């Protein structure tokens, strides 16, 4: 009866998971993100000046006027390019750290809710509702006002941003996965719940979570910028993209380049992350293309 199937079946189509053809805008986005990460990693080597070094003779020099300060200088004669490079490092650290923290926290809570149901689920959902209902800026302001300010605290605080989305998504998808059958089937094979959740359900819902991460990532950058702009984020002399925008606003009419440079980086980075994330979602799904 088995000879009905041709055993010399066509070889499985070559899996083109990695390095597939990508649209030009995704390639550009990837290139941009790669450059940003490289800049962040190598920031100490490639900054022409110390980002705090003042050069009072050259204050408010415009960009592209001298070779020593290609992006110009700010009101204290500090090199904008050097400050930008250090800012990219700090902002990326905060954004990546916070995005990962909130993804892990939210997904874990979502899975716990889906697995235990009942009281645990109610508690998680209530926390998620609470988080969604409370303007995050107010929470951030109060925490920073009471506990002072430090980079780890700021990253941890940002890590609370957006976790409720992951929690809701993870919970909903895990519940539907359990109802769908493969989770039940694996459980019925005798697998531990951790195996079911981490090896099976997580990869299956990862695409949705990744898209959600790429949505949260730009928001974290913007939130950090907002907080720094308000003077509650990264404190001087440390600098970050938002911090640069915030302090540059006083010179927006006379020396717009001080804030235009970090603003451009914020816009391009958030755009690149969104484009790549959207493309990644499709590529991570073996049933598509």
């Amino acid at each position, binding site marked *: *009866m*088995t000879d*009905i*199937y041709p*055993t*010399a*079946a*066509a*070889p*499985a*189509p070559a899996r083109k998971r990695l390095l597939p053809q990508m649209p030009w805008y995704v390639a550009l986005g990837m290139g941009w993100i790669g450059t940003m990460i490289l800049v962040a990693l190598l920031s100490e080597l490639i900054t022409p000046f110390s980002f705090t070094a003042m050069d009072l003779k050259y204050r408010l020099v415009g960009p592209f006027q001298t070779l020593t300060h290609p992006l110009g200088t700010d009101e204290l004669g500090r090199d904008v390019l050097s400050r930008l490079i250090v800012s990219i490092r700090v902002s990326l650290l905060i954004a990546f750290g916070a995005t990962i923290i909130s993804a892990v926290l939210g997904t874990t809570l979502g899975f716990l809710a889906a697995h235990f149901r009942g009281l645990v689920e109610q508690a998680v959902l209530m926390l998620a509702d609470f988080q969604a209902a409370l303007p995050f800026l107010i929470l951030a302001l109060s925490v920073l006002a009471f506990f002072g300010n430090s980079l780890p605290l700021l990253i941890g605080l940002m890590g609370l941003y957006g976790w409720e989305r992951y929690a809701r998504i993870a919970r909903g998808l895990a519940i539907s996965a359990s109802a*769908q*059958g*493969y989770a*039940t*089937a*694996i459980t*019925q*094979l*005798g*697998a*531990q*719940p951790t*195996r079911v959740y981490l090896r*099976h359900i997580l*990869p*299956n819902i990862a695409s949705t979570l990744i898209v959600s991460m790429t949505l949260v990532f730009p928001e974290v950058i913007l939130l950090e910028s907002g907080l720094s702009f308000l003077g509650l984020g990264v404190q001087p002399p440390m600098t970050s993209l938002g911090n640069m925008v915030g302090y540059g606003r006083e010179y927006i009419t006379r020396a717009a380049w001080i804030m235009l440079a970090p603003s451009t980086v914020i816009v391009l980075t958030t755009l690149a992350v969104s484009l790549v994330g959207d493309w990644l979602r499709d590529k991570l799904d*073996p*049933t598509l293309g």
Partner: protein
Amino acid sequence: MSALLTLDTVAREYVTRKGLLGHRRVVRAVDGVSLQVMPGETLGIVGESGSGKSTMGRMALGLERPDEGSVSFDGAPMPLLGSAAWRGLRKRMQMVFQDPLAALDRRWTVLDQIIEPLTIHGIPGDARAAGLEALAAVGLSRDHGARYPHELSGGQRQRVIIARALITNPDLLVCDEPVSALDVSIQAQVVNLLIDLQKTRGLAMMFISHDLRVVRQISSRVAVMYLGRIVEEGPAAQVFHDPQHPYSRALVSAAPTPGPRRIEQVILTGEPPNPAARPSGCAFHPRCPVATARCRTEVPALVPAGPGRRAACHLIEPAAKVAA
């Protein structure tokens, strides 16, 4: 020979609530069923939708806890769902699902999924070789193993499920409507495969289906269920040849058979059974062509009706007593 699986007057209730403030309704999906599965035999369970056959299969595997009665496997009571003992028992009892695509993880290759039980239970040895052997046993090639579930046909997917279920050499296989989602031409292949595997490995099977042709082909014994109760049970050949309960008679007569009809066709009237509104007395009496006043008030017990057979009908009790 002692039974491999024993269900002792098991019952399972579900509580439903209609609307926000609707009152609780208790649905007895399975109502006091006793069954045994001997090692190496195939017990077919037939019945229409809502007759509780799937619930019974789930209880047999310990996936659901009976509200009343008990389930024991190989002489020991079924451990609690999710406990370490329950998980360990999985390598001795496996399940084949109705929808093979849903039961497979679409992100894993077929071979990886087939050998997953070996990893789960920490069974030593060359898992890959065992997986390829299992693939061959269900009639799939090596190439199929490297594919993803969505790249296989329905019949091939069901073979994968069977290969995965059998890789730990279980003693009991519960098949819950394993072929009803498949094309008729593929159904026969999968059923033949199950029959072959069962013969060569001597595993016991509980084969749940609403398809009488398939059940007749595969089962050594059948139990006919109606609204959560067994109405007739006995050797497959006899039950299909000479059904005693009016419901089994109607079922058997409704199944198409080649050649001249042996049994006069009984066409049931009335509504299909609703487990939420179980009729009094014999649950089948509103649709029974031969119901009497007694059927409306008194629940018939499942009593011996011939050698190795049991039936639950007031009208065949006298005959049974004569036979006994």
